[in-house]
């Protein structure tokens, strides 16, 4: 899907949660960025800085306290045509969020069943192919409760890929994976980007992975309540004069 202009536009977004009593707790504010088609965009930052929250906001699950989000040219809030957008994005949640009462194959087949008219045989073949891409070809008949944590992550990625969406959101896809599988996943992301011109928004902490896949990255900080860096990760690693960014890329304790 060649789209003119950015596939994702986040303008001045803020999020705060109400605390017990009548207070509010600000997570971040003034977050703005845009992602163009075919880009791998990485969101990074310390634990608890709001990466998953930002992702939920972008995909339309959590209205921002302020600001606006446009995905594939549609406003997500108010999301009158959100249903149309949702079939064209793939999302992998940090926890995997596989359906516990379905096998891996059924999990991946579900979006195909709901959004296409493919015959049963084709759905099975497609779902098997997606599971094969993430290295789970031999576990298709297992239930989520019967697989390891890393396998659940990969199955969740396969489900996000089910419809070959042009825009994918992955929340910590390689957390809990061994370096070899993790590198394989990075290669898969790059291949899909190159072959299908898919766009990726990836939340990750893995430095190696960031440097391998990211065209640009956005760094959030809990203390700063917002963005502290935006740009090419290699340039940030070598040239940033923000001590927090330097500490992150050099794996120093802040």
């Amino acid at each position, binding site marked *: 899907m060649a789209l003119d202009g950015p596939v994702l536009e986040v303008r001045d977004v803020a999020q705060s949660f109400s605390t017990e009593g009548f207070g509010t707790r600000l997570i971040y504010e003034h977050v703005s960025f845009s992602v163009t088609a075919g880009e791998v965009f990485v969101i990074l930052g310390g634990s608890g800085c709001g990466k998953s929250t930002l992702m939920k906001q972008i995909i339309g699950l959590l209205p921002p306290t302020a600001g606006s989000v446009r995905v594939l040219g549609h406003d997500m809030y108010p999301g009158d045509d959100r249903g149309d957008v949702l079939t064209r994005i793939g999302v992998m949640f940090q926890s995997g969020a596989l359906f*516990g*009462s379905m096998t891996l194959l059924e999990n991946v087949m579900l979006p*195909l069943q709901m*959004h*296409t*008219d*493919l*015959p049963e*045989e*084709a759905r099975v*073949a*497609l779902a*098997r*192919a*997606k*599971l*094969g*891409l993430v*290295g789970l*070809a*031999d576990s*298709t*008949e297992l*239930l*989520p*409760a*019967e697989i390891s944590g890393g396998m659940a992550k990969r199955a969740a990625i396969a489900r996000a*890929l*089910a*419809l*070959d969406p042009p825009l994918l959101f992955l929340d910590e896809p390689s957390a809990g994976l061994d370096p070899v599988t993790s590198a394989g996943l990075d290669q*898969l992301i790059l*291949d899909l980007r*190159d*072959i*299908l011109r898919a766009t990726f928004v990836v939340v990750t902490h893995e430095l190696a992975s960031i440097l391998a896949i990211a065209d640009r990255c956005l760094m959030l900080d809990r203390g700063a309540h917002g963005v502290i860096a935006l740009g090419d990760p290699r340039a940030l690693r070598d040239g940033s004069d923000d001590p927090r960014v330097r500490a992150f890329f050099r794996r120093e304790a802040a």
Partner: protein
Amino acid sequence: MSATLSVSTEDGATVLRFTGRMDAAGIAGIWTQTMRAAAEPHEGALVADLAGVALCDTAGATLLLGAEARHGGPIGLRGQEAGLDTLLDRLRRAPPPPQPTPAPGWTFTSLARLGLRAAGGGIAYLGEVAVALAMAPSRRRMLRLSDLLRTADEAGVRAVPLILMLGFLIGLILAFQSAVPLQRFGAEIFVANLVSVSLLRELGPLLTAVILAGRTGSAFAAEIGTMKVNEEIAAIRTLGLDPMTMLVLPRLLAALLVMPALTLLMDASGIAGMSVVMQALGYSPDAIAIQIRQTVALGDLFGGLFKAMMFGAAVAAIGCRCGLAAGNGPRAVGQAATGAVVGGIVAMVLLDGVFAVLFYLLGW
């Protein structure tokens, strides 16, 4: 724009000419046609012409691989975009799915073994509860009072309005239904005897226990089942703690504690409901009270309360057991809750039968 397929022969080779978008939605219309075309016996090679294809993603690639498998040999490609070969390579690299081993059929021995294992599990559980009870004094620290109080509050205090309402209505209905036939013999005054005896001895404890099974037994099973699914039970064990003492005993004690009180309330509100009918029939409260006192002995009341405690213990124990025995996944939690209610009700009726025989032999 959906994909289209046309089949032709060129120099002995069969050519599948695709056009349009070969994504999941696009190939829906041509999947069956493609498979059929690929499966037909071919003299020469099978070639896919993709020159007119706007986009071919993993769905399209899977279609081509499916055709290849049907054909039984490699499929030639022409006019494809550069990336497609890489994509096909990636998809081909996945190992074929394992062949499922057929499940063995049911035999008498396998069924018997299953039944024995279930029975053994139940007996082992009773043993574990007994051990936990015996060890409770030395494991006082694991027995958290706050847990006990919270459970007693949820199982008991919060059930009071429901118990009062149901008891009142049941007393009312029983009295009304029995007044009609008794009236024909001029024996309406005995409605008081009938309702109070049946409430105190049977209906009070049974109905209260049914409510406990529905409200609380299922909640125990769901709560503990969720903990099991989330590996919290395993975490309790690895922390050197005993799930029996930490989870089961407080719930058991809470049920033992609240059941007599709830049953008493059920009895009282039932009798109140009955008196409303009796007064409508023209009997004074004094007359009703005298009638009740003549028929009901203290033994009836205490026998009923004792039964109620046993029912409560059975419901709580079965609820916890269903939770602890829950399998994996969200469906298991639902099954545990269902099992808790069904098991609790069956167990209390069986127990009631046992008590009926026992009380009869004891001359109560």
